[in-house]
Each structure stands twice: as structure tokens, then as C-alpha cells.
């Protein structure tokens, strides 16, 4: 078990900077997920921690030791790959015990450790099989077993669920979380799937273009995104973003979305937004904070009428889409609210949850 620290880590491939000097501190026993679109540098970062890629600049510290020049085998880490990377000519038992056999661990110890790991993952009866006789989910379990058996300081996962079908992916996600709660090894997990990131992580690291956009708990990222990128990336359906003007009104500040829709800025935010009065900004509000009209429960709820364009029933809720200032906006209403396409409908926005984003910097104000 160990702490992993990255200091100003840079990775350059010829002319392109894949990772542009990131700082990250991962605590002992923590489950950290690196998430971002493809090409954001998350996998490269993981591979540098594993020692599979050289570091162009900066420092990586595992358990107090700088490992920049330490080969992978001496870093005491275990990695689970997207395509499993099981040794095809070995049985499950041999696959799981390979690392221990290389280290010449006593036979008895190997046996107990493999059996313990197999028990944790429920693959005890597969130990004599070859990888090609296993299903995708079973192979993924074996790959995890191979990591657990080693009892390393750090687990690294590189998009381990991407090759599984949707249902199995959800199952294995729970499985990974359960395993981590049992073995409590420091874990760094890379995925492009923000739902995986949110559900698994103690802390999520959102990366984009080789830099870290934000580090935070899933809750923090969801409710207090630091940048436009994070606001758009986290959450499904994505946060609605509409261009607006911050204007002064008789009662304080207002968000001018279009000529028919001016939303009042909640009183407790006026001081925060005052410096930006008169500016053109981006208004952000998540779909679940726009619902059918109800008895108001909070002070900053605001009713407005829209023309519904598309209705998407999800069962429990219904997503309704309408246009504001030419932009598609989605709201999440109760399934029994009677929303119909082409109908005028009154929505209630909870402005306590609004975000204002600066156009140029992409910063959330």
C-alpha cells in the first residue's frame, strides 16, 4: 500500500506533448480515476506510473521512492489491461501465479495466495482452464486476479471494462469496487467513461489535452465544476449551456438568455457575479434542475414557459428538449407530468444550481 505522487510530469513524443506537466497526489488506499476523452494523456500518465513509458520531465514517486529510472518489475505495481493480456499458453492458475513464480515464492504460499484471490473473484473452479476457454467477463476477472495475487503497492487499471458488453460492464464495475473495498490497495484507474469514473472513484482526475482540468470527489465535480470542459464532460445527459448576457436589472442581476427569457440571479450570488455585469457569458444548468412546475420548495425557483420539441421517456423520468436562443436545452420532468412534443409547457428552474462560465478562459465563475 502506498502513496503515489506526480510532480510536473511531462511526456513528449517527438513534437507532440502528450502530458504537459501534471501534479497529482494519490493517497494510500485511495481509488483515483483518471478520466477524459481519447488522446487526453490519461493512459500515457498511467503507463508512465507503470514504467512502460519513459518520463520526459518531472518526477514520479511511489511510496516515498522516486521511480523515474526504476524498471516496471521493480516498482511493485500490478496492471490490468483493456484487452486482458492473459498469457494464452498458460492455465488460469499459471497466469495468476506467474509473477510469484518469477519471484521464486514458496509453492505453498503461491497456492494459498492464488486460491484466496480466486475466492475473492469467484473464479475458483476456472483455475485449470486456458484463457481461450473463458468468457470476456471471466478473462477480466483472471486479469484482476493476476494483479491481486501479487499484493502490490499499487493497482493500475487501463480501461479494463471497455471490451465488455454494457450489462457485464456494470456488473464488473461493482465487482471492482467490491474488490477494492476488500483489499484496500491504492488504485489508479483510467477510463473515458465518466459514469465509470463517478461510480468507482474516491477522487476523479479529469484530464484534457495533456493537462489536469480538475481533481475532486465525484460530488465536487458534478456540483462544482471548475471549467467548462468538466461541466460538459461530467453528467449524462450533459449540462445545458446557453450563451447569455449578464445584465443589471431593477432587482439586481439578470441572465438575458433571449428576448423572452431573463432569469434572475439568486441574491447570494450577486456579489460574486457583479464584476462580470454587461459581459457575454455561458449559462449552465443541469437537466435535473429544470422540472415540471411544482409547489416551490426553495427561494430561487423560477417558472418559465417553453415549446417542447422532443420527448424522451426514460421510465422514471422524461427528458424534454426545447430551444433557447437556438440552442437545444434538455430538462428532466416527471414521467406523469404529461409533457408532449409540440406542446407549450411550464418548467421550473432551480437557479441555486446555475453555473456561469467565462467564454475565453472556460472558467466557471
Amino acid at each position, binding site marked *: 500500500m502506498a502513496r503515489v505522487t506526480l510532480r510536473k510530469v511531462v511526456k513528449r513524443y517527438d513534437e507532440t506533448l502528450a502530458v504537459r506537466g501534471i501534479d497529482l497526489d494519490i493517497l494510500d488506499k485511495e481509488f483515483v480515476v483518471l478520466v477524459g476523452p481519447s488522446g487526453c494523456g490519461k493512459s500515457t500518465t498511467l503507463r508512465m506510473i507503470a514504467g512502460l513509458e519513459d518520463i520526459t520531465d518531472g518526477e514520479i514517486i511511489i511510496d516515498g521512492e522516486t521511480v523515474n529510472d526504476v524498471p516496471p518489475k521493480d516498482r511493485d505495481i500490478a*496492471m490490468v489491461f483493456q*484487452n486482458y493480456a492473459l498469457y*494464452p499458453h498458460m492455465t488460469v492458475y499459471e497466469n495468476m501465479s506467474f*509473477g510469484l513464480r518469477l519471484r521464486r515464492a514458496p509453492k505453498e504460499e503461491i497456492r494459498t495466495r492464488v486460491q484466496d484471490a480466486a475466492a475473492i473473484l469467484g473464479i475458483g473452479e476456472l483455475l485449470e482452464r486456458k484463457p481461450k476457454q473463458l468468457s470476456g467477463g471471466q478473462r477480466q476477472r483472471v486479469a484482476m486476479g493476476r494483479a491481486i495475487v501479487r499484493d502490490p503497492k499499487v493497482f493500475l487499471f487501463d480501461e479494463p471494462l471497455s471490451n465488455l458488453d454494457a450489462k457485464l460492464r456494470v456488473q464488473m464495475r461493482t465487482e471492482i469496487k467490491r474488490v477494492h473495498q476488500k483489499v484496500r490497495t491504492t488504485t489508479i484507474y483510467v477510463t473515458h467513461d465518466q459514469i465509470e469514473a463517478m461510480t468507482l472513484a474516491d477522487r476523479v482526475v479529469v484530464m484534457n489535452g495533456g493537462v489536469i482540468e480538475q481533481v475532486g470527489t465525484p460530488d465536487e465535480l458534478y456540483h462544482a465544476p471548475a471549467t467548462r470542459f468538466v461541466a460538459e464532460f461530467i453528467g449524462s445527459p450533459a449540462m445545458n449551456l446557453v450563451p447569455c448576457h449578464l445584465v443589471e436589472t431593477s432587482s439586481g442581476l439578470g441572465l438575458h438568455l433571449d428576448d423572452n427569457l431573463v432569469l434572475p440571479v439568486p441574491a447570494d450570488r450577486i456579489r460574486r457575479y457583479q464584476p462580470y455585469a454587461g459581459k457575454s457569458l455561458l449559462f449552465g444548468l443541469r437537466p435535473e434542475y429544470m422540472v415540471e412546475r411544482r409547489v416551490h420548495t426553495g427561494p430561487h425557483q423560477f417558472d418559465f414557459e417553453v415549446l417542447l420539441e422532443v420527448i424522451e421517456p426514460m421510465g422514471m423520468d422524461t427528458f424534454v428538449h426545447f430551444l433557447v436562443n437556438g440552442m437545444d436545452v434538455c430538462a428532466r420532468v416527471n414521467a406523469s407530468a404529461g409533457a408532449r412534443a409540440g406542446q407549450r409547457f411550464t418548467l421550473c428552474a432551480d437557479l441555486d444550481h446555475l453555473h456561469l462560465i467565462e467564454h475565453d478562459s472556460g472558467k466557471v465563475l
Partner: protein
Amino acid sequence: MVTGTRAAVGIASRGSIGRDRRRALFWSYFFLAVFVIFFLTPPVYMLITSLKTSAEISAATSPWWVFSPTLANYVELLTSSTYLTFFRNSALVALLVVAITMLISIPAAFALSRMRFWGSATLATGVFLTYLIPDTLLFIPLFKIFAFVREATGIELLDRWWLLVIVYPTLTIPFCTWIMIGYFSSIPKELDEAALIDGAGYFQLLTRIFLPVALPGVIAATIFAFTVSWAQFLYPMAFTTSADQLVLPVGIVTTLIKGDVFNWGQIMTGALLGALPPLVIYAFLMDYYIAGLTAGATKG
């Protein structure tokens, strides 16, 4: 209504697929048959001739039938010490060449396909280019080199069977390295990365993970190296002359053709027997060759 239409379409298309398939199968078998006849005629002719006496071969009877079959040619060859010497020389040369080739080609292919270092891509192409130089262009310069070595050091290389063990790898190593680079590159990189993280060094990675997984590729290269050394004619023809130093292909031609007398029965027998070892090796290794040993390594 909808299902009815779909069912009708299904039947119609299935019928036409069946017809297409039958036609495709017919032509496949037709061309396969042509192919088989074309390639099996010479060995069959050789077998027939090898079972005949010299008298029957020169008689004006059908060349496609044996009227009084005899194993005399086989008995004579297999009890002749010169033929057995050729056989022994050929076998030694082929086995040693295969061993040397694999010892050099496997690490070379591994390095060129896996370790990125300065100039590795150029080197890989260079390896292949050397294979493109034909041996007909090389045997005279090589002869000169060997003569020079004798003058300079007093070591006689010419007319020694083991010289071929030194020369053949110049043909086999480039090609074997090249095909193994191709095969090794098809093995997912994650497999070595997993092994490296599991604690393997490069040597363990090669012997315990890489070679077992790459076995079909290695076997294909082995078959190639063996066939090349077994069937090579020009170099032994040029470099060896004494009867006890000859290998099979040259030995058969030089000892069984005396002036203008062709001992056809024995020539055919000798060639047939000489073709046996490659045949046995193909038959034995083909299973491995075809077996998809990498199946299950990754999703696929």
C-alpha cells in the same frame, strides 16, 4: 404482413446463396483438382520409375505403368555408403543451419519488433534487402573469399561439407528474421508489458511468454530454413567436390550420372528418398503451424 414478406425474402435469398455456394464449390474443386494433378504428376512419375529396372526404363513400354516392380534401386541406394554419406551430410547441414538460424533470428526479430531503438526500422528493412540479393550473384565472390582465407590463414574451407553450415545462414537468417518480425509484431504488446510488470526480465519474457506464443511463427521460419538448406543446389555444387563431402542434391546428380549414362532408376529413387525428410517435417509440424495458439490471449 411484415413477417410474411420478410420470410419470403429470406427464402428467396437463401435459395440464391445456395446456388452461388454450389457454383463456388464446384469451381474450387475443379481448380484444386487441376492443381493436384499438375503438382503430383512428377512425384508419381518418379515413384513409378524408381520401381523399374534399367532395362524396363529404356524399353518401349508405357512410362506410366510398372510391369515387373522391383525394390532393387532402393536396396542398392540404401546399402551404398556414398548415398548414406550424402544423406548424413545433408541432415547435419540442415540441422545445424536451422539451429544457427534460430539462435540468431529469434533474438534479432524480437529486438527489431519490440525494442524501439535508433535505426531499428532501417535495420529491419536492411535485413530484408540482403535477402533480395540472389545467390547466383554471390557464389563467385564467396568462392574468391574462401580461396583468400586459405591463402591468408592456411585454413581450407573449400570442399568441406561444414562450409555450407557457415554459408547457408546468409540466406536463411535474413528471411527468417523478416518473417518472424512480422509474426512477432502481431502479438499484442500488452502481453510483454504484463510480463514485464509481473517481474520478468527480457530473457524470461522471451523464453517464457514470447516464444510459446510465437511458436507458429517460429515453426514457419524453421520449416523455411530447413527446406532452404536441404534443397540448396548452387552453393554445394560450387564449393564441394569430393564424394564424401557432398550433400544429397549434388551427390545424386554427380555420382548417378556418369558421362552420358543416366542411371534413371536410382536418380529417381534418390530424389524421392531425399524428399522424404521435408515431407515428414511438414506433416509433423503443420498441425502446430496451423493451430491458432494465440487465441484467447486478448479479446478477439
